[in-house]
């Protein structure tokens, strides 16, 4: 019988799937749920050595002889410290030692809790990988435990063979009452040494595939573009992207807008059977709606460095190669054609999105700006509305898009933009909010050091952090602009004097129309166009846009539930709906 301690069950299932069968056990209570479970399972081969230091060295000799990973297990506290000498040697000599260190609850550590030390990453400097697995209390814990253990095992021999540590918490030792433990999700990494492309293609046959393109700044994109296009044409694939994928086609879908309006039921309908991702960072808020476990799809990720990214909670395969190679292999000798059935579900939903007439706001300004950005430019958008709203509009495929969506900070957007502009002759546009601009004002002093003189800065100044007006609004927090949204009265025009930049401004649609033309036109010097809007209005317009684009049936259902009948009639009139 196996233990009912859940994180230990996950560990055992994955040990078996990764074919790690050798154990050198030292006595203890904390590791008993693991040890008794495996000693009864004929898959595992167990040894017993009391002194953990000797046990780890014994395991080292075993592993060296077998050229296989060997686990060592012990109880909590200084028992785990005794592994250190062998871990160091294993690291230096590329031997696959697996230190399974059992641990107590972490909260009472150092507060009179017996036999308890900080075991998290305790072999730092001499370990390939180290994870800390909590006791499982909910689904998030379970996913985290599964993912982390997978990551750890994958690092036993990725790039270099060496030791790993899995520290797992066992607050109480449970019971041995489980006949069969469930088979856990395993993540497999494929590279040129173990990939069978034929098998991969078989797995994709007749499946609904969603190709999700993430950030890609590679200048040599053409081969990848062509390969993805052909893949799209040959498989039942839908391709979604955000602007920073820099991979566009009229048939692909920028589904970023879905992140703010999609319901759970719709997400289920749109979910694929296999999701394929590639790219450095994934901006699109769509990712918040897709969950591989709930919607029952597999996630495959392509990354040159073989990094594990389990954003959809059901990653099963990592392809350690360039994306262009993956798609090149997938299109070889394949004669099927995309029947577009799956894609139609996406396109139908996208076609239902209406923008309508917009009052003068950051939304309308960005709409107008996106319409006129000259081809073959570069565009950097700052966090957050600039990024969000530009992704609602079509940007010509010749325009290279950038944003600091790795960590979504408002710091450094201006500096980053100058760096990007400095390495190109193209016209360079920065779309930025007032707070982000003022934050990175030091960058202003470098504008004239940049070789590229075709710099254009469009600042949408609503005198505060508009995101907070969207999240809270003045009606909820009347003092919003005091600290949270950091309201200000700064005259941005005065900053342009620092570096000989031409200044334009607009506070209404008419002025914007005039100055936008100048802004995108030729100029001897960089131009800064400041557009003034109102933060609360901006927030309202954005929310109205979302509300009007939420699925009508669900919207109606919600309204009917919330409002009395007499108000529903009034609302119908207002919306002019039958």
């Amino acid at each position: 019988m196996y233990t009912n301690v859940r994180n230990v069950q996950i560990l055992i299932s994955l040990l078996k799937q990764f074919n790690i069968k050798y154990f050198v056990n030292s006595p203890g209570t904390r590791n008993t749920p693991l040890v008794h479970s495996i000693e009864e399972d004929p898959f595992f081969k167990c040894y017993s050595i009391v002194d953990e230091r000797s046990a780890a060295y014994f395991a080292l000799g075993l592993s060296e002889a077998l050229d296989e990973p060997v686990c060592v297990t012990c109880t909590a506290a200084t028992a785990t410290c005794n592994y250190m000498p062998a871990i160091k040697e294993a690291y230096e000599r590329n031997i696959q030692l697996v230190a399974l260190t059992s641990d107590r609850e972490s909260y009472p550590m150092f507060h009179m809790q017996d036999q308890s030390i900080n075991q998290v990453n305790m072999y730092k400097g001499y370990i390939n990988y180290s994870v800390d697995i909590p006791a499982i209390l909910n689904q998030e814990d379970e996913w985290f435990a599964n993912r982390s253990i997978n990551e750890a095992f994958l690092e036993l021999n990725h790039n270099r063979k060496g030791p790993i540590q899995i520290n797992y918490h066992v607050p109480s030792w449970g019971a041995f009452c489980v006949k069969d433990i469930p088979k856990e999700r395993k993540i497999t990494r494929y590279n040129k040494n173990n990939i069978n492309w034929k098998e991969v293609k078989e797995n994709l046959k007749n499946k609904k595939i969603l190709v999700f393109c993430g950030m890609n700044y590679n200048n040599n994109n053409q081969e990848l573009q062509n390969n993805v296009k052909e893949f799209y044409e040959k498989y039942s694939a839908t391709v979604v992207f955000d602007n920073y994928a820099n991979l566009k086609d009229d048939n692909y879908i920028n589904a970023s807008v879905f992140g703010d309006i999609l319901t759970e039921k719709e997400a289920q309908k749109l979910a694929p059977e296999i999701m394929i991702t590639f790219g450095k960072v994934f901006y699109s808020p769509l990712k918040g709606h897709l969950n591989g476990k709930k919607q029952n799809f597999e996630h495959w990720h392509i990354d040159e460095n073989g990094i594990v990214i389990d954003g959809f909670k059901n990653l099963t395969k990592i392809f350690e190669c360039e994306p262009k190679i993956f798609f090149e292999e997938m299109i070889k000798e394949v004669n099927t054609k995309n029947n577009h059935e799956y894609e139609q579900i996406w396109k139908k939903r996208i076609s239902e999105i209406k923008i309508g007439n917009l009052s003068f706001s950051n939304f309308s300004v960005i709409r107008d700006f996106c319409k006129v950005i000259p081809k073959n430019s570069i565009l950097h958008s700052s966090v957050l509305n600039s990024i969000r709203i530009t992704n609602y509009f079509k940007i010509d495929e010749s325009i290279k898009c950038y944003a600091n969506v790795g960590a979504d900070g408002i710091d450094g957007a201006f500096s980053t933009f100058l760096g990007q502009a400095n390495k190109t002759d193209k016209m360079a546009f920065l779309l930025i909010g007032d707070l982000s601009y003022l934050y990175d004002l030091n960058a202003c002093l470098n504008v004239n050091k940049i070789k590229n003189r075709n710099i254009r800065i469009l600042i949408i100044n609503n005198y505060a952090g508009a995101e907070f007006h969207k999240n809270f609004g003045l009606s909820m927090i009347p003092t919003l602009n005091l600290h949270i949204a950091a309201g200000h009265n700064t005259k941005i025009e005065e900053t342009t004097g620092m570096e000989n930049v031409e200044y334009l401004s607009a506070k209404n649609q008419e002025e914007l129309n005039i100055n936008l033309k100048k802004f995108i036109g030729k100029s001897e010097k960089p131009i800064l166009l400041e557009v003034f809007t109102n933060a609360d209005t901006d927030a309202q317009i954005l929310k109205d846009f979302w509300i009007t684009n939420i699925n009508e049936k669900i919207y109606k259902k919600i309204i009917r539930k919330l409002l009395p009948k007499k108000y529903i009639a009034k609302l119908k009139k207002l919306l002019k709906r039958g």
Partner: protein
Amino acid sequence: MLRKILNLLVEKQIKDVVCTEDILKSIDGQDKEYIEANFNMQIFNDLRSATFFSNGEVNSSNKPVILIIKGEFLPNIYTGITEAWFQRSNINIISIFEKYDEIKVEYLERCIPDILTIYDDGIEEYKNTIYKFIDNNMPALINIKYTLKLEEKSDYTSIINMLDSIVKNTVDVFIYNFKNESKNNISIKNIEPKYKYGILSKYMGYITAKEKKSLLIMPYELLKIDLNIFNNRYINENVKIIIYKGKEQNNIEEWIKDNKIEILKTEKIDEKIFKKFWDLNKASVLIVEEEK
């Protein structure tokens, strides 16, 4: 730099020093004499034991203890120094490295709050810090660079030849700090001095996996840091160990015999005794009185 730190300790009237045998053999003779003349010195073979011992001394005397060790074996202090951290013991470790890039001690930061690495030869700018460490009732670590005497390699060619003449299939031979290459049926696995801890344990693990006879040749002093492994369930006729005892006085043989291992002794190894040892259908240890 070691002498300069020792001078500071003398000035501070620190008396108790614990060190390992290997460090005393590796440092300059004059530094060794200086330590012997100015401190109450305790010598331990096993660094793990040395750390716990130091903790014990501090518990008892309430005075600082200095532990002088080879930096490459620092991992062996981990468990003892963690206990010392809990007990707020004033153990000050002088850890000697041959190269700066060997100094990787982040894992110790969680149990040694005061860590100093000295990169140059001047002591004055470090004096206050070192005194602070000594006055602080917590473990401390000072890493320094020092040119240590190299351990001489040994030559076991004669044993290799003897073995080669009697075996028909390939045999793995683990040798500590050996200078010769593999030959014929003999596959030599050289054990570098930096991996001297756990030699017996590693060997036992290896032959458990391989399930065939393998030879281990090692000096007696390394027995003293891996003794307890003889008490394991996996000892069988594949265990063949040759130990060069030299001038060692300890008598560990009884302990080895108690664990169902046959002991053979000889002043000098020859073909007759070697064959008897190798062909014995039992775990066997051949103790050679000759010094290597």
